């Protein structure tokens, strides 16, 4: 085996550590670190594991509430569902790996988030994903989309967790950095939550799951460097490849294990594998941990202790068992054909220690890797060109002559076109709980154990965020909440995935802090808590950062799942009503971007009080079963929302005849994206009751017209066959992805 290289400042730099950080390490240890220790520090102090640039600002987010059982800090957040049940959920990014190898990158992203959920004792019951790709005509986009979607399906379908929703956007801002954010929700018994704690001196530390290979080792550049170049090509770090079959049995085995009283703590091995899992468990348990690396099951010969500590091989878990329960634990995993090996024990010395060939190669105080890791309050500065990009002079844009033409162009633009091409490749039914499949504003699943249901929606309009990160992030929160409210699910908590560029750049840091404040203010107004999340920085290529993308995954509850509502028109003769008001707002709209090829102006203004009022009304109307359909107005504005109400029924199209009042520019009236608006349809005999509700509450609303016929007609503006519009809308994405 090749000898470890000498540890010096240069090597520290190769590991991505700054000079100050290296000095802090030497100071903490009172000596220079070993090669293995340097590796451990470099991963534990990496942005990914330490949140060193974001931690300070994340403290601003509201994280508590009556229904919140677990906020940020554990593997996932937990919400109380009542009746002794809890929802465990989190969203996580797998952006960089997915760009390098779309299939395996996306697949292992799904595998990783699943482990975060079942490690807490929850059975995963629903996954969603939020995807961002470059311009659809960019040479790499098509292959990336196909690879990512196949990877999400390939893993999720096989592992047996339904993929019930998500979002996909295309924007040239992602040409060099795609985003793959994966969300999973699991159901646990509120009194049977498991946490990632190492406690009880002498308790055995047990390694379970796949063997360790050289997958995704972080010191890639290093291993390929001078000291090692006699090592052959195969010894280079390898991309992680997921094994959904192993994950499938790992889930069953872990959930079965948790039925018995055998373990103290359990943690998945995610980023920085063995190192972060054991260090985090020791940290949470305020204990120490010692591992004998020689006992770690390996896939290849000649793996070094450095590689064992940093490998990111998939489908592995770390368990702290009760002393004496080793055999019982092994028996459970053996039943499922999995390996369980004791590799260490819990200590009281507060140290992370690892032994290799009888020698101590790592000896680090646990807090040095966690609470005492560097935290940066980086400089934030508004981008110099922002004000200029926010300018918008509508008089510069001539009114279109054919609005029907504009509408069909909009419903076939990749960001609005049907995502059926994507979600039909996902098993959205396994588990037998899917009440509303992909295709409506929110996914709805039922709880077998009760009458309740859960609604989930992921949203972020990154064009809004690029032009105003504060308002854009606030809108992401209210839109995902609105998607739930119009579906009958009361929003309770969210998980956020904050995707940004290089935080060492003041403009990026400014976008980040603005987005945090936007999320905070929207959450406080709507009484929502952030219970889990993930930060992904350095989404940047050749100095070009992605548009700020704070993806919001919102979870809501239906007390009675049969009260859910879908977005498409149901019956001829139903009355169509617009809830909310339309203003002359075309800034940052899909209409400007697609029809006038301009991405400028400010996003629509947001009145949080009005939004709250709207959502409460929608929830009450759903409870009283007043809506035949309800669909929030988003990209493409009112005309597109009406069109979607006509054409998104999975089986067929249904026409409508409406007239829009208002002395706005027609294009703003039709395609403006004013917030806090919902298109609903109501059976005539229920309209009086709804009208009374709206009037007593003083929510602005307008009767637009009536459902029926084969055409969508917006009097004085357009008339178009609903069936043909539906066909164009369904075929558009697949056609453009050739």
């Amino acid at each position, binding site marked *: 085996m090749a000898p470890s290289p000498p540890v010096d400042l240069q090597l520290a730099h190769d590991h991505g550590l700054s000079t100050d950080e290296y000095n802090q390490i030497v100071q903490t240890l009172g000596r220079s670190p070993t090669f293995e220790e340097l590796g451990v520090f470099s991963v534990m102090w990496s942005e990914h594991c330490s949140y060193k640039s974001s931690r300070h600002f994340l403290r601003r987010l509201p994280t508590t509430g009556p229904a919140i059982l677990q906020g940020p800090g554990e593997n996932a957040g937990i919400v109380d569902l009542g009746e002794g049940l809890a929802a465990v959920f989190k969203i996580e990014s797998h952006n960089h790996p997915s760009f390098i190898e779309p299939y395996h990158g996306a697949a292992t992203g799904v595998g990783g988030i699943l482990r975060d959920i079942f490690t807490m004792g929850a059975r995963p019951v629903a996954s969603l994903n939020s995807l961002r790709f470059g311009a659809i005509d960019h040479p790499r986009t098509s292959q990336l989309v196909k690879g990512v979607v196949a990877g999400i399906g390939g893993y999720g379908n096989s592992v047996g967790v339904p993929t019930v929703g998500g979002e996909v956007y295309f924007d040239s801002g992602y040409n060099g950095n795609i985003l793959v954010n994966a969300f999973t929700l699991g159901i646990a018994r509120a009194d049977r939550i498991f946490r990632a704690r190492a406690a009880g001196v002498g308790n055995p530390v047990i390694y379970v799951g796949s063997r360790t290979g050289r997958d995704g080792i972080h010191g890639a550049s290093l291993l390929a460097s001078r000291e090692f170049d006699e090592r052959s090509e195969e010894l280079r770090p390898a991309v992680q490849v997921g094994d959904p079959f192993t994950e499938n049995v790992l889930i069953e085995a872990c959930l079965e294990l948790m039925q018995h009283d055998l373990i103290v703590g359990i943690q998945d091995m995610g980023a920085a594998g063995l190192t972060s899992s054991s260090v985090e468990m020791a940290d949470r348990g305020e204990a120490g941990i010692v591992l004998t690396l020689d006992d770690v099951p390996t896939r290849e010969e000649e793996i070094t202790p450095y590689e064992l500590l940093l490998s990111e091989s*998939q489908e592995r878990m770390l368990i702290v068992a009760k002393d004496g329960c080793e055999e019982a634990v092994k028996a459970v995993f053996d039943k499922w054909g999995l390996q369980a090996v004791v590799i260490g024990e819990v200590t009281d010395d507060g140290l992370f220690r690892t032994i290799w060939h009888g020698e101590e190669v790592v000896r680090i105080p646990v807090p040095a890797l966690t609470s005492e890791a560097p935290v940066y309050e980086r400089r934030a500065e508004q981008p110099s060109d922002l004000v200029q990009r926010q300018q918008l002079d509508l008089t510069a844009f001539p009114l279109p002559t054919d609005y029907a033409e504009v509408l069909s162009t909009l419903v076939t633009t990749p960001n609005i076109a049907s995502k059926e091409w994507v979600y039909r490749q996902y098993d959205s039914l396994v588990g037998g709980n899917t009440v509303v499949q992909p295709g409506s504003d929110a996914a709805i699943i039922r709880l077998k154990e009760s009458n309740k249901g859960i609604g989930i929606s992921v949203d972020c309009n990154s064009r809004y965020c690029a032009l105003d990160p504060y308002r854009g992030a606030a809108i992401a929160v209210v839109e995902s909440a609105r998607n739930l409210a119009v579906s009958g699910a009361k929003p309770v908590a969210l998980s956020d995935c904050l995707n940004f560029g290089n935080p060492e750049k003041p403009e990026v840091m400014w976008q980040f802090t603005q987005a945090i404040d936007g999320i905070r203010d929207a959450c406080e107004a709507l009484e929502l808590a952030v219970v889990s999340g993930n930060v992904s920085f350095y989404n940047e290529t050749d100095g070009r950062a992605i548009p700020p993308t704070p993806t919001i995954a919102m979870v809501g509850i239906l007390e009675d799942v049969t009260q859910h509502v879908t977005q498409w028109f149901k019956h001829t003769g139903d009355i169509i009503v617009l809830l909310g008001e339309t203003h002359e707002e075309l800034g940052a709209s899909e209409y400007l971007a697609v029809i006038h090829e301009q991405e400028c102006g400010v996003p629509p203004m947001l009145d949080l009080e009005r939004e709250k009022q709207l959502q409460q009304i929608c929830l009450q109307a759903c409870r009283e079963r007043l809506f035949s359909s309800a669909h929030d107005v988003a990209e493409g504005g009112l005309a597109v929302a009406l069109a979607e109400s006509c054409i998104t029924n999975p089986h067929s199209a249904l026409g409508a005849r409406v007239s829009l009042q208002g002395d706005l520019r027609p294009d703003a009236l039709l395609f403006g994206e004013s917030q806090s608006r919902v298109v609903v349809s109501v059976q005539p005999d229920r309209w009086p009751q709804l009208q009374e509700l709206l009037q007593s509450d003083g929510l602005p609303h307008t009767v637009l017209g009536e459902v029926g016929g084969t055409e969508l007609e917006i009097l004085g503006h357009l008339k178009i066959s609903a069936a043909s519009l539906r066909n164009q809308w369904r075929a558009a994405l697949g056609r453009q992805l050739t």
Partner: protein
Amino acid sequence: MLAKVYVTPKKAILDPQGKAIALSLHALAYAEVGEVRMGKYLEVQLTGLSHQQAEQRVEEMCQRLLANSVTEDFRFEIVEE
């Protein structure tokens, strides 16, 4: 002319299929079986190329499409039929 292309998972890359197949063979009492690796085998019909051109074109096809350079190795042979 026929190109026989063999695409195999890189040595250090996990091969879940090979692993599962090996386990099943053991279960079927083929104790003699050690590691199993599973890859792809492609037969590509070619026309109107010299052997040398074929060599160079197929090499290129493998790099561009037939093999995933991140996870797979490839080798091929050109045979006249």
